[in-house]
């Protein structure tokens, strides 16, 4: 069982044109920085990217947008991203906006072998157009399908050589869900440890869901909205 890869480049070497990717993170928090950098370098195109956000102009998925590697973006909120907006308005980029909880639950469904789930999010709105509506106990729900993605790229705080992952604080977000949902899941970690180093009760993603793991480098961990209290306030 050889899950450990030596670098991001080695781990993503078979992500080719037209692939569908799940990318963990919320905003710039907990995003697979190393995998994205390697994809920017390798330059596969016509990618479908499923991620809660689309990065910013000069970081995260925004870096792949700059190079026009992304054909379609599936996200819940695309935020402030000038190049994204330009490509969307010019018709170069296809965008599907879906509710955040629906995004999360469609990942979980894939990881739990459930073909579809019911959620009330979007009932009565344009999100419901073309979707099956079903009423349970007098409440209407939409039928939403599990994602079917080729690769999941996730970022954890610690991981071990068997692929077990531990996330830190709100950098967890979509990462464990996407880790479960990828046909091939690639995890980058701030600290890669020998199997047996992590407390088995603390593991968020069991290694069975992780096919490749590597020690990430040079994490920027950018902050999108630095909000602080001043000592004198």
């Amino acid at each position: 069982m050889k899950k450990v890869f030596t670098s991001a480049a080695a781990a993503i070497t078979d992500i080719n044109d037209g692939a569908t990717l799940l990318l963990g993170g919320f905003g710039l928090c907990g995003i697979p920085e190393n995998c994205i950098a390697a994809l920017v370098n390798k330059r596969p195109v016509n990618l479908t990217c499923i991620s809660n956000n689309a990065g910013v102009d000069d970081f995260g998925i925004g870096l792949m947008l700059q190079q026009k590697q992304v054909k379609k973006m599936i996200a819940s909120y695309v935020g402030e991203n000038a190049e994204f907006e330009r490509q969307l308005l010019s018709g170069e980029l296809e965008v599907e906006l879906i509710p955040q909880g629906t995004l999360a639950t469609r990942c979980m469904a894939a990881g739990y072998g459930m073909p579809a789930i019911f959620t009330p999010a979007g009932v009565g709105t344009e999100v419901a157009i073309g979707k099956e509506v079903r009423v349970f106990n007098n409440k209407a729900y939409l039928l939403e399908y599990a994602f079917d993605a080729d690769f999941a790229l996730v970022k954890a705080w610690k991981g071990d050589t068997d692929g077990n992952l531990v996330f830190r604080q709100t950098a967890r977000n979509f990462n464990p869900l996407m880790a479960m949902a990828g046909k091939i899941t690639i995890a980058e970690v701030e600290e890669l440890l020998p199997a047996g180093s992590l407390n088995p009760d603390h593991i968020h993603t069991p290694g069975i869901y992780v096919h490749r793991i590597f020690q990430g480098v040079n994490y920027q961990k950018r902050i999108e909205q630095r909000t602080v209290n001043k000592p004198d306030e």
Partner: protein
Amino acid sequence: MLNKNQIAQRLAQELKDGYYVNLGIGIPTLVANYIPAGIKVVLQSENGLLGMGPFPMDGDEDADLINAGKQTITTVPGSAFFDSAMSFGMIRAGKVDLTILGAMEVSELGDIANWKIPGKMVKGMGGAMDLVASAKNIMVAMMHTNPKGESKLLPACTLPLTGVNCVKKVVTELAVLDIVNGSFKLLERAPGVSVDEIKAKTAGKLIVEGDIPEMLF
């Protein structure tokens, strides 16, 4: 007429001891500054945190610790982290007692529009559609009228909907209103605001029964 902080302060009066609360971006975020003394309220951030605290002191910010508005925050004792599926799971299951959101329009049926303006760049609904479809108690904090002076409390929303038949209460700079039986029911006036002004600025069906008291702070 209330300012934004006063709207938040009035909404904070709706909080009860032991409530789990989700506060949206904008005025709702300010509600956290006015939690009544002697009660404990736990703030949920839908990116995966229960027990959100204030902004960190300068220098203590942590890139791994943000709220749903992507701001750096802190935790309080008793906090817990979880993934986004559990986060929206607890919202869908009605475990969050109160959700306070901003809105562009609210209808007399409790429909809400707060995510999209036709012709403008659409950023996405984020978690708003999940929150309004799932939470058991949804209140809206917003201005009574838009910058053109047009009422935002309407017979029917004109903007694309975020959710239907979900808003229970609206607090604006002018009034507190419940949404009941397809109407806005006026409960309180802002200090110095007349019922006539509220009537004039409410396009949806408005119910005014008896004397309408001024808000107390």
